[in-house]
Structures are given as C-alpha cells and as structure tokens.
C-alpha cells in the first residue's frame, strides 16, 4: 500500500487529465453511471416508488413478482421494489456519513501525526496499531452489540474502526511531502503551521484519500448491510437491504425472491463503487 501511495502522490496528475482517462475507462464509467442512477433513485424515491415501503397489506403477503408488484411482496405484504428503492437512500446515507466522518478524522490525525512527528505521532499511530489489532467488523459488531442494535450505533462503530486506515496512509504521504521544497519555502516565508498543513500539504496528499474513500464506500455499505443482516443495524420497519435479506431468510423455500433481490441490490451498489475506486487507483498510480 505504501508504494502505491507514493506512486499516486509522485504521479500528481492534473484533475483534467484524471477525468480524461476516467472517461476512457469502461468499468469506471459503468460504475459512475450506476452510482449516479442510485443517487437519483435515492433522491426521487418518494416519487418513483410504486407503493409505500412500510405499509403492510396482509392480503397480499408473499406474492411472487407480478404486474402490480414487480418484485413481489414480503411476509407483511410490503412491496419489495418500493422497499429496495427507499433502501438505496438508507445505504448511500450510511456510506457517505461513515466514510465522511472516518476520512475527516483520519486525514486530520494523519496530517498532524506526520507533520508534527515525535510524541504526537507516536501516540496517534499506536492508537491506530491497537485498533487495527481487532478484525474490523468484529470490533464493530461488539461495539454495536454493547450499545444496542440501531443504525446509528452501527454507523458509529464503523466510523470508530474506519478512520485508522486513512490516518495511516495520510501520515505516510505527509512524511514524503513535508520535505519538499515548496513546504520549506512556505516555512521560510513564515507561514503558520496550520496553514502549511491544510493549505500546502493536504492538497498534495488527497489523491490516495479519494481512492480510499471510493473503495471505502463499497466497504462500508457492505459492512453495514452485514451488521443489519445479523440484526444489529436497521430496525423494522426501516427498508434496509441487509435487514430485508435477514427477514427473507425464513421464507427462502416459499418465497426465494425475498432473498434474491435485496442481495442483488447490495452487490450492484458495492460493485459500482469498486469499479470506480479500482479505476481511480490505477489511473492515479500510473506514473
């Protein structure tokens, strides 16, 4: 990972160049198109969902896909398609919030650790070491489990474990950037520490952060769905994809569509972010 980060930073491609290459990358474009579609679906959910996602209709329970309910209904007679449509906004919100918080905290602490060095660096990085000693999801599982099942606790838990990798990467990047002439020049001009860190160094270490955040969206959405699947995340009647899968388990024999569609939604979303993230990494790292 460190070599890759150095490569990305040394590469320092201008933004327009990155976009130009991205446009030519087929998988990246497919990923971006899916993400755009998901965002639109999430925003327009109340208008495009054919039914109310939480309204129960016991007369219509466990229907197979048909003309009125395109993807069928669940055990409480709720429209699967409508629930999936509303679920898009739940998953995207989780992803954006967790990645946003984790990246903000991680980048800030990584910057400080790398720039300040010494005891501050030692302290921050040892905390990172300790948190990384836990398999991530399992720590999140325990945190969410102890705080009690809820979507917020899952987000909190994922943010608590998520910031460490950003901190580690940014610190490494800062170490190589801070010796550069332009930083020295800024220092010689009497620029303040905070300004050097955030205005001069930060923009130069953002490329790997963007790659990590894109791949992180995939990771967080998957992890949150897994925790909800285990019953720790979204609580009924929230239309969350992972918990929909969990609800469908009991009816696998009679109504397999309850299992198939939510899983497909998760996979397509995760795949889209992975497509885009992978392409970004390749493009930014190519010297």
């Amino acid at each position, binding site marked *: 990972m460190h070599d890759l980060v150095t490569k990305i930073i040394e590469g320092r491609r201008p933004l327009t160049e990155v976009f130009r290459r991205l446009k030519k990358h087929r998988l990246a474009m497919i990923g971006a198109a899916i993400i755009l579609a998901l965002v639109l679906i999430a925003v327009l959910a109340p208008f495009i969902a054919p039914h109310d996602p939480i309204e129960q209709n016991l007369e219509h329970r466990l229907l197979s896909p048909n003309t009125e309910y395109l993807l069928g209904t669940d055990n409480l007679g709720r429209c699967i398609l409508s629930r999936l449509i509303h679920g898009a906004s739940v998953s995207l919100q989780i992803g954006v919030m967790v990645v946003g918080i984790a990246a903000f905290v991680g980048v800030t602490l990584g910057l400080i650790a790398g720039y300040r060095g010494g005891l501050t660096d030692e302290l921050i990085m040892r*905390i990172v070491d300790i948190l990384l000693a836990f*398999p991530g999801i399992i720590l999140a599982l325990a945190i969410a489990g102890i705080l009690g099942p809820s979507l917020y606790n899952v987000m909190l838990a994922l943010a608590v474990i998520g910031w460490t990798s950003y901190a580690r990467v940014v610190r490494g990047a800062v170490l190589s950037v801070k010796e550069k002439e332009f930083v020295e020049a800024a220092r010689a001009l009497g620029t303040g520490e905070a300004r050097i860190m955030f205005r001069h160094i930060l923009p130069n270490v953002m490329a790997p952060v963007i790659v990590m955040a894109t791949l992180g969206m995939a990771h967080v959405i*998957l992890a949150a*769905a897994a925790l909800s*699947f285990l019953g720790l995340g979204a609580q009924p009647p929230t239309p969350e994809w992972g918990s929909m899968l969990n609800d469908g388990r009991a009816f*696998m024999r009679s109504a397999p569509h309850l299992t198939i569609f939510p899983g497909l939604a998760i*996979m397509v979303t995760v*795949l889209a972010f992975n497509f885009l993230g992978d392409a970004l990494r390749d493009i930014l790292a190519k010297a």
Partner: protein
Amino acid sequence: MLTYVIRRMGLMVFILLGVSVITFSMMHFVPGDPAEVIATERYGEEITTETIEFVRAELGLDQPVYIQYFRWLTNVLRGDLGYSFRTDRPVLDEILTRLPATVQLALAGMLVALLIAIPVGIVSATRQYSAVDNISMFGALLGVSIPNFWLGLLLILFFSLYLGWLPVFGRGGIEHLILPALTLGTGMAAITTRLIRSSMLEVLGQDYIRAARAKGLKEKVVIYKHALKNAMIPVVTIVGLQFASLLEGAVIAEVIFAWPGIGRLLVDSIFARDFMLIQGCILFIAAMFVLVNLLVDIFYTYLDPKIHYEAK
C-alpha cells in the same frame, strides 16, 4: 533477526495491553448502570436495590476504574475471563469448546480460496490482457463485491433447497462443511487471485526470468520453478493477513449455517446481552489475530532473506 523478533514481541505485548484496555472499557459503555443491567440479565426484571449493590460489590464495580481494570487484567492473565450469565459456565470454557469448529471452518475456507486463487492467478498473469485474464479479473471484482451473507443464502437456495444435495445447516460430515467453506472462501479467493496475478507479473518482468528463458528452459519450468516460487513470498503474508477477513467471514457463515463456532457464540452472546461472554470473545479473537500476524511476520523474514528488519 533475533533483535527484530524481540522488538516485534515487545510491540505485541503493548498492542495486547491496548486491546485489553479497549475490551475492558467496552463494558463501561453499556447504556445505563452496568451493575443494574447485569443484575437484570442475571436475576430477571424484579430485582431489589440490594441485589444491584450485591452485584456491584461482587464484580468490583464499586472500586475506582483503574483498580477494576487491574483486577480484571490479573484474572484474564490467569485465564479467568469471568462467567457467562446465560449458562453460568466459565467464558474461557465456552470459547474453547467452540474453537475447533471455527478453526475447521477457517481452514476449509482458506483451502477453497487457495484452490481457486493459485491456478486462476497464474493463468491470468501468464496471459495478461487475454480474454481469460479479463474474465478472471472481472470475476475477482465480482467476488470482492458479492455480500458473503447473500452468497451463503444463494448456495443454500440452490444446493440444499433446489437440488437437495447438501444439508442446510449444522456441523457433521464433510457435506456440512462444503457450503460454509464456499461462503467463506469466495471473497478471499477473489482478493488472493488479484495478488497472485500482480505478484507473478512483477516476478515475470525480472532479469532472472529473462535469463532463464534465454537459457532455453521450457516455459513450464520458467513459470512453475522460477517465477512461482518467488511470486509466492508476498502471497504468504497476504494469506496470513487475510486471517482477519476469514474471522469476520466466519461470523457470517457460522450464523447462516448454524455452525457452532466462536463467531456464532459472539453473535448469540450479543443478543442475549451476555456481556462477559462478549468481552471474552472479543479479547480472544483479537489476541488470536495479533498472534497470527506476529507469526506471519516472522515466517516472512525466513522466507525472504533479502529483508533486513534491523535496518528498519
């Protein structure tokens, strides 16, 4: 080498101490008064203030936090992780009873992953940018993105419910192991395939490979005898580090397939709010993870004599 191992051990002790502090403080994040919560879990809803105070004194919750931690740590070092509220058995016993099932599942998952990843990775690298390579790399991306809990359910749907070939859940003969191992191994196979491919590609570009080819050695010998051996060095570390995702995956696979391992124990204890057991499981898993990482690191230095850790 020895200095490195000793330094690495020192770091491990430090990390384990940190892990213990985090695990210990978890109990203090239980919403509400821990003594009351524990008393309720243990003796039911109708508890008196005396019972709560009794529990508080018994668990030492009336002491200052650092004394609580110290006492807890001394017990942990003696192998005493407390008692499960639910079964009243020692936490360590509960964990050790479940350990073999998890180890078996993890090894089977790893086997599945390597059986897929090694051949696919080699073929992909030797025929870079061919159709085979493109398909396997797309497959790898798919493998990373497919939720393992969904994959597990699909496998049950197809192989157990539709075809009726394999049992849906439980632990027993080899037929019980197949679906959970596939669920667990797929994601790891995807990651490992990509690593083997890139590692092979790097090695294939080296001068000694060109030299081997120039000597007129058969392509098979070049690839399997010269390249593969060197390409496997980074792979060993990664496979070791994948242990974390293997443990994470095991939680899911164990829940879906009702596999009686530590992962399922952890999830069950979370829903039963059996805090001692949660704490014990987390500590045990983290300690295992730290140990495996240490072993991988040390093993790595033996594999690759080029690495001089002293210099670092």
